[in-house]
């Protein structure tokens, strides 16, 4: 137990140090990594829902809603303050998560996925339609905000965004791990395996899922506002369903159900995507599709699963390999 914990902690620390040092070596990766980590937060949100066996094909709506919230606050306050923008984005995504969550937690599986998709497409259409307010498909510029009152140049600002995002990622990864290990978090897996029994314990499966949903919306929102401030722009494109699909893709790539996988997946995905698009400009989608197929068919544990196989260590907590357990459960069901 102690050995496993130490190995995990060591690996996590090594990864964080490596990422923290990366921009010092190559300038341009700083923004790429900031975006990757911000997306990782959204993927972490997806991952929470995956614990409950649910998949949202619409989480890009929170990512986008929060980005636009940041953009509007920035516009109203003439540039604005970084932490106010982030706070606004987070607040809006949590509120939207609650409003939509109350509705969608009544549904499961395909319906859950589809309803989320429908709501995200509604948001996408609104962002495109209400052109005079939202700038339509061109989106909204987000001017570089002040940081605690200081006006920063581009380079230092990018460092601030990078290390701030990294810090948030470390903190939230820890926090989400704790949440998942708590009764409330463990109830998510119970929603997946046996909702009826959960109700017969006296607990509402919908409430358990709603807590997870709002949390996941907040994480997606935080990712969205961080990424958009870093890019200086919010566009409707980030609410499109393909973007939501990308989050789910990354969750599976990293290893469904693992906190580390969300971020490992996001960083690797951005890297692969960036290089695939640069070097296979004609077929980058095909490359990504092939990678996804290979992972599902040959490495169902994702990157984390691969790492476990290579090191011969178990990196995740929990009782059993979720993929295997889920397979067994399905066989049982049929």
């Amino acid at each position, binding site marked *: 137990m102690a050995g496993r914990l130490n190995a995990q902690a060591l690996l996590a620390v090594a990864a964080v140090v490596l990422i923290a040092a990366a921009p010092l070596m190559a300038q*341009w990766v700083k923004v790429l990594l900031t975006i990757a980590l911000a997306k990782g937060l959204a993927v972490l949100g997806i991952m929470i829902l995956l614990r409950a066996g649910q998949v949202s094909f619409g989480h890009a709506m929170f990512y986008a809603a929060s980005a636009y919230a940041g953009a509007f606050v920035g516009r109203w306050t003439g540039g604005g303050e970084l932490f106010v923008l982030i706070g606004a984005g987070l607040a809006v995504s949590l509120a939207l998560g609650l409003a939509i969550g109350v509705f969608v937690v009544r549904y499961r599986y395909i319906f859950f996925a589809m309803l989320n998709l429908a709501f995200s497409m509604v948001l996408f259409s609104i962002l*495109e339609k209400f052109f005079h307010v939202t700038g339509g*498909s*061109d989106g909204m*510029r987000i001017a570089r905000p002040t940081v605690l009152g200081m006006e920063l140049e581009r380079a230092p600002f990018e460092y601030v965004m990078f290390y701030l995002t990294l810090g948030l990622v470390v903190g939230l990864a820890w926090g989400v791990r704790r949440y998942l290990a708590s009764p409330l978090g463990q109830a998510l897996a119970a929603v997946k395996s046996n909702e009826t029994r959960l109700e017969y314990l006296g607990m509402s499966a919908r409430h358990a899922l709603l807590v997870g949903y709002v949390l996941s919306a907040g994480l997606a929102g935080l990712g969205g506002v961080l990424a958009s401030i870093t*890019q200086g722009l919010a566009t409707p494109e980030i609410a499109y369903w393909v973007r939501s699909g990308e989050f789910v893709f990354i969750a599976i790539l990293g290893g469904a159900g693992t906190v580390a996988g969300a971020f490992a997946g996001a960083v690797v995905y951005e890297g692969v995507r960036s290089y695939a698009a640069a070097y296979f400009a004609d077929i980058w989608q095909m490359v990504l599709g092939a990678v996804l197929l290979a992972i599902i068919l040959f490495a169902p544990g994702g990157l984390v699963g691969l790492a476990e196989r290579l090191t011969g260590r178990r990196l995740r907590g929990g009782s059993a390999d979720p993929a295997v357990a889920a397979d067994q459960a399905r066989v049982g069901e049929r």
Partner: protein
Amino acid sequence: MSRFSRILSVAAVGLAAAAPLALAPPALAQDAPEGAPEELVIGITAFLSGPASVFGEPAQAAADMLIEELNAAGGVAGVPLRALYVDEGAGGEHVLSEYRRLVQEEGVDAMFASISSGNCNQVAPLAEDLQMLNIMWDCGTQRIFEEADYRYVFRTQAHATPEMLATVLYLLRTKPDFQTIAVVNQDYAWGRDSWNIFLTALQALKPDVEVVAELFPAFGSPDYSAEISRLSALRPDVVLSTAWGGDLDTFVLQSAQRGLMDISTFVLPLAESSLERLGTDLPEGVIVGGRGDHYFLHPEKVGDADYDAFVAAFREQTGAFPIYPVFHVAQALSALEGAYLGAIEANGGAWPDREQVVDAMAGLTFAGLGREVMIREDNQGLEDQLVGTTVHDDAYDFAVLDNMMIFDAEDVTTPVGAESVSWLSTLGPEMLELEVDSFSHTGP
């Protein structure tokens, strides 16, 4: 000697010649100036996937041809040019991160970005931050130089305002008595912006016009049946659509088939890029714009050996006639070459640094494949505008343009420091009296 005269020989020599070119300096090369790098690298963002790749792919093909030809002639002052491409179809985020990578990692000397106005909006401030010479080579948004001052960002073509205004003027000259108009534009920034500009200009010049329908079907919509039925019931005198690519094709196809084009005069400012694809489905009498003076049968250029050679070589290579993005990328390359040559001269024959090249861009006059373009003091290019009306000619299996007018850029471009929409609303009847160059279609 113009570089276009060499393109045929390059095409003939083909790939076999291209390989050694990359290894040894070509015989034609003059000695490179002092301090010159081994090569000049540019990054070009263009749609290579998605619906807008109808623009990106021809532009890429043209850029490759032009660069190959330029290098065969010794490059820019003896330095060969190399292009790296970024796919705008992969999304704005990808464009930005690739932009950073090309600038910070690949060390490109200049960027051409971009086709999408949305991407231009994002890239312009980034280029300024990175102190990167950025040529906006194809995007149409009028906002960028009207909302901020840039040192490093230039536009080597016009923007939406002159394009729309020229169309309005053409419409008012050729069909002055129309009463009603309907618009069917794609539901995204371009569709909305271009209508806003068009309508402002139209209302300033013809206040009694009645707008009977404003329809913005979704981008990429496969079906306009309901829109066409509604327009057929409304019977507007004029139907405007600034749509492009597959959307324009579908709209024209369905409208033509259902007789709407017999009822209303269609005004399609971007249809120059669809002429060949639409074939004879595009009837006669449709008003078509060329986003600049771009048209493969440019009335002043046809007959020019270099021009004809390029059009023929392009058609040989891609199987299609060149369309406006091809001309736009040619303008951007020409501007870059001109800026470097000017900067070298200003630098006493030595290779210039970035700042010197940027200085040389200001006030530059250059020509791509069309008329000359001048970079104004606000970094905006002044590009003349060609508008015409379709006519069928048996020599072509698609509609070509007749009754063409080329509007002088000075007349139709928002003045320096003015904001397009407020400027347009001040226009008076004198605009209808402008002198324009008129041309008729003359067979091949």
